[in-house]
């Protein structure tokens, strides 16, 4: 394959990944990694390096729109970043002593199990807003955003410590494997903190860039960030994320939830397959 063919192919794949990733609050690595490894035979380390760049691109490319339109909850994001960054450092510290196949089996299974509460909530538009009290009140973990039809949604959050713990798991996973953080962030905000689905996916989007940047230094220094791969990936992802952000703002919470459940199932299966030795 010529360099030019490869660049054009990855550019279009990455636009698709950026659209997907920016809507569900995951990085787009879920699309980029299997295309690189299975379809194009690229080494998994380069694929993970490309995924890190894809995550940062999806995050910044879509968050610029989400933050401006106030769907992202900045305070929830900043608060949970305490856990995701410390988790990423912990993951990096223990990576040498862990078995990545075992980890992928465990975390893939957790993702599969979390499909159950996610599917049970399918059809939920705006969750019944909990009373704002305790730590959530002290931290101001509440907000409001405007739907595309002009409806203003006011919401509170609950169980901040559970949210923090779930996000710490997301951070550890990112630090260990370079992947999988976004799914746990969305689940923490949705299942524990009871935020509206669009707030959860866009706030996850906002955070995953910081978590990925925390690990980017090492991938770069190791030479896992291959310029020929990441150039078309970054460019495609940025364009895809800009498109995805516009789609999300016009979508209903119920649609975003269905989409997320679908992607969650794919992510879980990819992770378990990878543990079984299929490089995805």
């Amino acid at each position: 394959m010529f360099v030019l063919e490869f660049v054009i192919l990855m550019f279009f794949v990455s636009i698709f990944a950026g659209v997907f990733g920016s809507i569900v609050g995951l990085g787009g690595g879920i699309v980029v990694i299997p295309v690189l490894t299975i379809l194009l035979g690229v080494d998994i380390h380069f694929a993970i390096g490309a995924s890190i760049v894809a995550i940062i691109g999806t995050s910044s490319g879509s968050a610029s729109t989400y933050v401006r339109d106030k769907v992202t909850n900045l305070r929830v994001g900043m608060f949970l970043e305490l856990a995701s960054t410390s988790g990423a450092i912990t993951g990096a510290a223990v990576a040498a002593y862990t078995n990545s196949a075992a980890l992928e089996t465990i975390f893939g299974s957790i993702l599969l199990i979390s499909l159950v509460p996610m599917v049970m909530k399918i059809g939920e538009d705006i969750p019944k807003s909990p009373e704002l009290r305790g730590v959530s009140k002290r931290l101001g973990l509440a907000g409001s955003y405007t739907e595309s039809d002009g409806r203003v949604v006011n919401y509170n959050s609950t169980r901040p410590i559970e949210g923090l713990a779930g996000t710490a798991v997301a951070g550890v996973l990112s630090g260990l494997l370079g992947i999988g953080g976004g799914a746990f962030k969305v689940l923490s905000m949705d299942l524990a903190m009871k935020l509206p689905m669009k707030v959860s996916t866009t706030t996850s989007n906002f955070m995953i860039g910081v978590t990925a940047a925390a690990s980017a230094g090492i991938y770069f220094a190791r030479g896992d960030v291959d310029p020929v791969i990441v150039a078309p990936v970054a460019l495609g992802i940025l364009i895809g994320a800009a498109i995805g952000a516009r789609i999300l703002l016009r979508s209903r919470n119920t649609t975003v939830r269905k989409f997320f459940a679908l992607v969650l199932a794919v992510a879980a299966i990819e992770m378990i397959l990878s543990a079984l030795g299929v490089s995805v």
Partner: protein
Amino acid sequence: MNWRNPESMNVVIGKVLRYGVILSGTIILLGIAGLAATNGLSDVSGMLAYNPNAVPHDSIDVSLGGLANGLVTFSAISWIELGVIVLIATPVSRVVISVFLFAAEKDRLYVLITAVVLALLLFSMLVTPFIPGFHA
């Protein structure tokens, strides 16, 4: 712009992210154009060879000196690397600016939270790559 206005926080952070994305996207696009012009019709497999026995695992020079040299000699690969570095720096600058934005709102709790996040982030990015045993 009124920095005391909570609304402006979203505007400023949104702009930081947008400018970072546009800048890195433009540099990467130039890099791709250069790559296409110089190596567009070469076989890609040589450029994607992963070497597990050497660090860096790639055939490119990831040192700062190598990068600077590549930039002044208009190496497409180095310009792409610069664009990627700008992309990685974008969320980091967002955190830096947030510290100041919360300070302008006189929100001490969030100044503290954001400053801790920034410290953890910089530690992870810049220090942990040099700690033996990290990231095996």
